[in-house]
């Protein structure tokens, strides 16, 4: 019981949008397709909906085990919410939601009273009951997005596909709507895929996150898995701010600015150039040199607005700038000032042995 794609490849001329994608979404699961623009995430979603067709080969799209590869979009029973909503501008909110029921062939079309009841129920679900007679142009962005969701849900889809569902909204509405979507998913438990380029959104909302890059899936896993154990420098970089330190690896450890750190996952006993990845919140700042694990740096800039303070620092022994994040309390205890010299300790260092280009 799942939605599955197998061996999906899609080329536009010489550009490869999707490169042999395999993905399985379990029944009732909420999966995010996360990636930068041009990584193929929207193309993959449209392929599942039947709005794009994969290049011929052994490509397969399966809904609950049934092969729908050759079935047109109108018969797949997928609910799709478009990035810019694509509401029918000449129809009221009510008629927009009812559309999928009204276009059914006579034999399967519900009766008028039943259509009304179902639309009312959905209006209730999206908390827009009083606005049924409005035109889409008279709604705000967040309201339109919810209407688009209700319209997709009205046809009782087997899978819900959301293309950048919050992409065109401002930050505050995004957050509210995100929480609402999560709650909605808990209630109706529909297999859902959504596309986003916002890592925070993906990590917060999804059960599992698939990270796409240049048409292939770079890594898939739960938010914790991919955040704590990124499979590649690309994933590491894409999931949040990151500092790069050049160093040398040997015997499972890495040397940065004369300090040695454990670097699990690196192999080989020959010494080699390596780039170490450190999250800003894994940078600790002290006034005292302490043990040998610290190196000196100069504070370039402090920004303490909000719950987290951001610091820009520069390594004294050369090697460029990096950033650090402190909690409010840490910041107040330390009271760092721009232009001050401090000592830096790296709490967690990640080194990728193969290919470190991002």
């Amino acid at each position, binding site marked *: 019981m799942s939605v599955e794609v197998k061996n999906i490849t899609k080329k536009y001329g010489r550009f490869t949008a999707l490169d042999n994608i395999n993905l399985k979404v379990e029944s009732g699961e909420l999966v995010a397709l996360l990636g930068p623009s041009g990584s193929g995430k929207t193309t993959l979603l449209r392929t599942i909906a039947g709005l794009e067709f994969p290049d011929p080969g052994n490509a397969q799209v399966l809904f609950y085990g049934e092969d729908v590869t050759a079935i047109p979009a109108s018969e797949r*029973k997928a609910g799709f919410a478009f990035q810019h909503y694509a509401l029918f501008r000449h129809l009221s909110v009510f008629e927009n939601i009812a559309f999928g029921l009204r*276009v059914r062939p006579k034999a399967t079309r519900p009766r008028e009273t039943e259509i009304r009841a179902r639309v009312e129920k959905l209006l209730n679900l999206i908390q827009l009951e009083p606005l049924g007679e409005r035109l889409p142009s*008279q709604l705000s962005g967040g309201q339109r997005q919810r209407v688009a969701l209700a319209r997709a849900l009205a046809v009782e889809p087997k899978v819900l596909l959301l293309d950048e569902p919050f992409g065109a909204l401002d930050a505050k*509405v995004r957050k509210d709507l995100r929480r609402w979507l999560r709650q909605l998913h808990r209630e109706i438990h529909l297999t859902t895929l959504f596309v986003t380029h916002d890592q925070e959104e993906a990590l917060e909302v999804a059960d599992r996150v698939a990270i796409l890059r240049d048409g292939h899936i770079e890594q898939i896993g739960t938010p914790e898995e991919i955040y704590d154990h990124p499979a590649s420098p690309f994933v590491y970089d894409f999931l949040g701010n990151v500092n790069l330190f050049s160093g040398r690896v040997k015997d499972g450890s890495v040397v940065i600015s004369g300090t040695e750190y454990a670097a699990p996952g690196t192999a080989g006993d020959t010494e080699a150039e390596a780039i170490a990845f450190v999250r800003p919140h894994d940078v600790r700042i002290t006034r005292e040199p302490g043990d040998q694990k610290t190196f000196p740096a100069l504070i370039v800039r402090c920004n303490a607005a909000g719950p987290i303070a951001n610091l820009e620092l520069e390594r004294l022994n050369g090697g460029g700038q990096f950033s650090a994040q402190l909690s409010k309390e840490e910041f107040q205890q330390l009271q760092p000032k721009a232009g001050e010299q401090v000592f830096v300790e790296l709490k967690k260092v990640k080194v990728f042995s193969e290919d470190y280009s991002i």
Partner: protein
Amino acid sequence: MNVNAPLPRSTTESPLVRRLLIGVALAFLSLFLFLPLISVFVQALAKGLAFYWHSVSDPMALSAIKLTCLAAGIAVPLNCVFGVCAAWAIAKFDFRGRNILLTLIDLPFSVSPVISGLIYVLVFGAQGWLGLYLNADHPALPRLANWLNDHDFKIIFAPPGIVLATIFVTIPFVARELIPLMLAQGRTEEEAARVLGAGGWQTFWRVTLPNIKWGLLYGIILCNARAMGEFGAVSVVSGKIRGRTNTLPLHIEALYDDYNFTGAFAAASLLALLALVTLGLKTWVEYKNAAALSLESQERMVPTSL
């Protein structure tokens, strides 16, 4: 910003220059547009209402009106269907030859109507390519040729030629009006309809057509005005047989050539009236369309809040 505040000097002209410019524009319009328009009606009624009525209810005039309505009645619906199909194809699909189709649609605009008429004579005339094939001496399709001969079916110097020429010169109006509109509206609403289970026809009737209806109406109005007023191409293929192949514009020319000026102007007043009605309708549709568009731009103005 205060709109009533005096504009900076550099962007405005002295009152004298402004009045002069407005005066020149008005004088030009009066001389070349209003005066002729009024003179049409003055001349038409110069010999009184009775003569006017006699002129427009004359059998020759009635036959010309009938033929004009027939030509427009066939050309406008056909071009309407063609225009929607072409605009749909160009706006909603990518295909080989898309740009060629776009250029071809403009062809009737870029060639002189007289040449369009001549082309039809050369293709469909008795000595033309298809005319020769339909000749009994040279039977490519003997049965069809015989049938056509038996029924004295002709294209050139007959109503079918007039209809064909009218269709040709009015091809671009509807398509030209719809293509930019449909390109601007994009494909996502159609895609949304497809995913919701609508078939091709349902998508067209329920989503595409309501979105383009004002643009379509505008195109139809312009197309009809041109179809009824077309002179050049029609005059070449018609043969000007009075009471049989004269359209209203050709009828006016014939009366004028007979020195029947009042009669000519009486007939011309009908076309002038059509022009005024067209103008009125056009303004109304533009007003409606602007209202629909401003509703859409409001849509963009609404703050995106919950």
